[in-house]
């Protein structure tokens, strides 16, 4: 594809967001698509950010133990997160907030990186997602438990944005938020090339993926990390940052929200996920393992 695309970059949700679409798209269509994507990110970030005291998520977390009215979008994402927790046997856990904070990720990442690089408190197992009660447009969290939807809210937003971008007129649109991306619409015949970055050096490519539909998300222990063995990917069974031998997991799924869940699951479960999902795993002993089809047949 090279530069045979139009692109627009902006910053949201603490990461770089890029909208890609066909090079033949007019300025007016591009502007319309860009406007939709930016407004969706602004709206969903205001709803789901845990670093904004006025966000709906912060309001819900502040009322743990009590029934709290929530928007339909909030309820839908919580339902999706609880479904993911159930499917993954708790590997994906939306109640790891306390553990993430205990590990030191208690502020915006830039502030964390500028401050102390130590765990704040000893790790404790998570898993209290089973106690969350969701009843239509109201929600009750267990006392003392906070939601962290960071593992799914970005993908959810990417999905909404990519679909809205295509509705503005371009034949296809790809929205990439910090490596979590979704291709919507009728993909170019030769697909979109997506580089899988080397976790040790993001400027280096491990391989390229050719995507003709759906979404890819990557979880990595080297991103959002603030010290040795201190990163944002919490193993709910221990409450500590995960250490499974997989240091980066990229997963394909029809939607970005689901790809995010699977990439997190793959990183926490390790190479066992190769039997179940299309993934590319990077292990701490230097291997890159994939079950995707290659240009010359099946490659592992």
């Amino acid at each position: 594809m090279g530069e045979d695309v139009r692109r627009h970059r902006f910053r949201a949700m603490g990461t770089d967001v890029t909208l890609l679409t066909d090079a033949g798209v007019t300025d007016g269509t591009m502007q319309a698509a860009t406007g939709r994507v930016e407004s969706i990110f602004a709206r969903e970030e205001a709803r789901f950010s845990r670093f904004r005291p006025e966000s709906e998520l912060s309001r819900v977390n502040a009322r743990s133990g009590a029934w709290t009215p929530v928007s339909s979008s909030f309820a839908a994402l919580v339902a999706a997160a609880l479904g993911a927790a159930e499917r993954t046997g708790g590997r994906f856990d939306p109640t790891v907030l306390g553990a993430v904070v205990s590990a030191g990720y208690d502020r915006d990442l830039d502030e964390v990186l500028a401050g102390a690089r130590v765990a704040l408190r000893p790790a404790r197992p998570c898993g209290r997602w089973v106690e969350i009660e969701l009843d239509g447009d109201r929600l009750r969290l267990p006392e003392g438990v906070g939601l962290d939807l960071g593992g799914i809210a970005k993908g959810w937003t990417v999905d909404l944005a990519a679909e809205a971008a295509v509705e503005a007129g371009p034949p296809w649109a790809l929205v990439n938020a910090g490596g979590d991306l979704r291709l919507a619409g009728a993909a170019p015949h030769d697909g979109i090339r997506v580089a899988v970055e080397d976790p040790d050096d993001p400027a280096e490519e491990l391989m390229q993926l050719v995507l003709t539909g759906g979404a890819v998300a990557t979880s990595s222990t080297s991103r959002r990390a603030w010290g040795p063995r201190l990163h944002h990917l919490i193993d709910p069974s221990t409450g500590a940052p995960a250490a499974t031998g997989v240091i980066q997991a990229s997963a394909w799924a029809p939607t970005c929200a689901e790809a995010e869940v699977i990439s997190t699951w793959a990183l926490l479960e390790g190479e066992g996920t190769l039997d179940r999902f299309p993934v590319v795993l990077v292990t701490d002993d230097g291997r890159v393992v994939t079950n995707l089809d290659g240009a010359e047949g099946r490659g592992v």
Partner: protein
Amino acid sequence: MAWVTGGLAFAAPLGALAASPKVAGAERAEQAPQLIVVRTITRRVVVHAAPGTAPIRYVYVDGSSSGAPASTGSTTAPSAATSTGGS
């Protein structure tokens, strides 16, 4: 009555023959199935796509960065339009 008597007289030797003891070899010969080929079926293998088949494949890039030669061909790998690397 004459018809019944005649029928029984005809069937009696057959019944006696069936009830008579048989030699071992004859028993084996009776048990061996006789195969009659009435038609030939050509088996066709149907391969179903794996449930996990996804509209994505990988191209290994030998070395680093865009423009490096792909290991699966002699042509230069096109630049990637975007990237993924964790968030």
